[in-house]
């Protein structure tokens, strides 16, 4: 028997009515939410400040950072004047924009097709989702072997293309890999959005004499907009953090030469993997600022109306 073992007197019953908060309620709030808040603050919020502190030191991780290791803005200027960093930023931007253009319309189109009456739709939905479930690292190993110059892809197509090493091709190979990995996720989101649209609307369109594609374009697509916007946000955040696939497929050194380096790849290579933790922290802060900027701009100008409801409504609903 837990906390309900003692039958509370009638007054206590009213005491825990919504709106009142006695010491007991406060204690419960503290006990229930305390551990989560401590872990969250320690491992999600605090790292930002830890990074901020060490980003001003030329520090390799042994002992505390000494005053003579203080370099001021040195790590920041080093990063911001590094042409490989800006190459990586450019690649991230490219991946973000091209990823949206490549995957968005394709995902909507496939979702519209799969939203029709057909057999085996749930099976297709599962299979399309398979690449998303596999670890990036594991998928990357397989793809790296497949796309080698003497690998299965060239054997299958009868070509001799350097999918990974040729700097002109590599970035497009990466875009295709990303589409392969994440399109299933996009399709599932779009399908979910489409299924939330009442069927009466398209039926009404059909009664009024609209063709199938007119219905999709004028009725379904506008109603799918909120889903598309949220997918785009997730996709943008994802392209900002891209690391696993690039690091596994191209490795620590080749990604830069092949023209597929990303900010996170640069951060890992110049920071942790070369033992320069102070510099790694500075890069982390810069990358964090860039991502935050992009996210906030997107929130402000695109997502605004939709998330306002999504983020505040549950809190309002709760008493």
């Amino acid at each position, binding site marked *: 028997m837990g906390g309900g073992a003692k039958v509370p007197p009638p007054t206590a019953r009213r005491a825990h009515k919504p709106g009142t908060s006695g010491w007991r309620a406060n204690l419960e709030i503290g006990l229930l939410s305390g551990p989560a808040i401590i872990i969250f603050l320690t*491992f999600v919020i605090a790292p930002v400040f830890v990074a901020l502190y060490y980003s001003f030191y030329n520090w390799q991780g042994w002992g505390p950072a000494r005053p003579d290791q203080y370099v001021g803005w040195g790590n920041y200027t080093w990063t911001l004047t590094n042409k490989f960093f800006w190459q990586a930023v450019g690649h991230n931007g490219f991946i973000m924009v091209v990823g949206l253009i490549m995957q968005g319309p394709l995902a909507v189109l496939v979702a519209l097709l799969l939203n029709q009456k057909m057999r085996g739709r749930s099976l297709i939905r599962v299979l399309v989702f398979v690449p998303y479930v596999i670890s990036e*690292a594991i*998928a990357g190993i397989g793809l790296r072997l497949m796309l080698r110059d003497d690998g299965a892809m060239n054997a299958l197509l009868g070509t001799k293309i350097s999918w990974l090493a040729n700097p002109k091709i590599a970035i497009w190979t990466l875009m295709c890999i990303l589409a392969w990995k994440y399109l299933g996720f996009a399709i599932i989101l779009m399908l979910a959005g489409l299924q939330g649209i009442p069927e009466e609307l398209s039926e009404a369109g059909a009664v009024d004499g609209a063709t199938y594609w007119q219905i999709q374009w004028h009725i379904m697509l506008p109603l799918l907009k909120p*889903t598309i916007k949220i997918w785009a946000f997730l996709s943008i955040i994802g392209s900002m953090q891209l690391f696993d696939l690039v690091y596994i497929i191209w490795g620590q050194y080749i990604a830069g030469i092949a023209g597929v380096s990303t900010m996170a790849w640069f951060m890992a290579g110049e920071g942790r993997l070369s033992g320069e933790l102070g510099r790694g922290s500075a*890069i982390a802060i810069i990358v964090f600022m860039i991502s935050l900027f992009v996210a906030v701009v997107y929130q402000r100008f695109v997502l605004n109306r939709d998330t306002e409801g999504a983020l505040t409504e549950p809190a309002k*609903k709760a008493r």
Partner: protein
Amino acid sequence: MSTATLSGTQPLTLTRKPTPKDGGWGSPVIYFISLAIIAVCLGPVLYVIMGGFRDNSQINNNPAALPNPFQFNQYAEVLKTGRFWRMAWNSTFIALITVVCVVVFGVCVAFVLARYKFRLRNGMYLLFAAGLMFPMTMAITPLYIMMTRIPGMAGTPWSVILPQVGFGLPQTVIILTPFLAAIPLEIEEAATVDGCSRLGFFTRMVIPLAVPGVITVAILTFVGSWNGYMLPLYMFSDQSQYTLPLGVAVFSSQYSSDTARILAYTSMSMIPALIFFSLFEKRIVGGLTGAVKG
């Protein structure tokens, strides 16, 4: 069998009244496109699994062919090594502890946010909502520094588990809070009238009612942890701590000429996630749907 029954097996489908149109097969074009998409999606996966059944000379002769004859050596050897089982255990242990912590702490916070009224509630909700904007990739360097500073923490599974719990909480809280808030007030009042304290209400009513949401969150967290690569890469330098993605990646660069064995290793670490996914497919897909609808 009409499609009405098919869609009945899918989560979050609006209940559709079967109309005469529903029974049809649809246009063949859809099936053709679907097949093409499935072929692209599954191609690399099948390449890896099939490649594990071929030996290196087969692969070198024709990289794209099917196994002929099937060779079971590679898989057998992977399964015989203690290394594989060690990594599988590490991955499982880390994922399970992460899930337990995320679920326990997440449900508690979601309950507070959904069922208590207090001054800081909105601030607390926004704190976790803002957590969604903090990608782990950016925090990973300072997290590594922090772990080396905490005595007895560096290189242990906890150095991966705790950050994963921290970064798993926002999504959990955001998914579960509306879920718990949706439990009708009348149920709570009825429980109160019957002499149940709010904590008693929590353990006896809320937790059972929250099970579907919890399962969704648990699966998302488990798959995320199982697939994680960058955090173990930063935290672990000792091979005995490696998780599967990290260990297989290291293996593939150590024995880069032994393609067949790498493929066997790769598919052996892929298969648990695939089995897990096929068991809980509806929950994962349904959970994502719910998360988006917010």
